[in-house]
């Protein structure tokens, strides 16, 4: 556990880091970014909390078992969106033209609209869940082990 200054600053900063990661995931089909990058940003926020507060404090609110559940549900969202287009093809973008994320942007440079992309935003969300939970679980396991505590109870 680090000093009180570091703990207070990280406590204020973690909200902004999480919101920034979520923004990168949600806008992955419009601006640079996506599920992988946003998930890495959220996992780095978790790393900052582990460094500032120590893995013993983090363990009280964040369990590896729950992180595994979140990771598996992200993978299930991804594969489910892939199978949902099975009427035409595997990984077919079946949501283009429908009311849900179905807007088609004009060809060429345009200002951008979040309500486009078909299945790509939903897949971004699933992959973001998967990457953030997976990397957080790995780092939490390593931190708990190097501290000599229980990794699972």
């Amino acid at each position: 556990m680090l000093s009180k200054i570091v703990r207070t600053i990280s406590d204020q900063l973690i909200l902004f880091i999480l919101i920034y990661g979520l923004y990168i995931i949600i806008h992955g089909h419009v601006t640079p970014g996506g599920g992988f990058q946003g998930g890495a940003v959220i996992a780095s926020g978790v790393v900052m909390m582990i460094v500032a507060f120590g893995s013993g404090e983090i363990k009280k609110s964040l369990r590896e078992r729950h992180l595994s559940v979140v990771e598996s549900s992200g993978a299930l969202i991804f594969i489910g969106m892939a199978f949902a287009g099975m009427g035409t093809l595997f990984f077919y973008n079946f949501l283009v033209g429908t009311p849900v994320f179905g807007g088609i942007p004009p060809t060429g440079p345009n200002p951008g609209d979040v309500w486009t992309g078909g299945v790509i935003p939903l897949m971004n969300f699933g992959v973001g869940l998967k990457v953030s939970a997976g990397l957080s679980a790995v780092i939490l396991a390593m931190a708990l082990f190097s501290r000599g505590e229980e990794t699972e109870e």
Partner: protein
Amino acid sequence: MRQIVAWFVLITLVAFLITSALLLHPFGYPPSAMDDYMIARSQAETASNNVVAAVVFDYRGLDTLGEATVLFTAVTGVLLLFRSLKKREKKT
């Protein structure tokens, strides 16, 4: 003996890599038939402004599926290894 073989392998591989780097296409002018198709058609076909996201999740979705499998397997392996290590240390 092993040192001599290792130096031989190292020098041969680096010489091969530098030679092939000099013989590649000039930097900045790649052959690009497939990528030109994707750049031209991604907005109409996948409704996504971000061509990289369209390639990752639509045109080459199977690659991303394999990547998700590798990540899942690696995370499962790390958690299992730490758990078994913990159990064995508790026993001894």
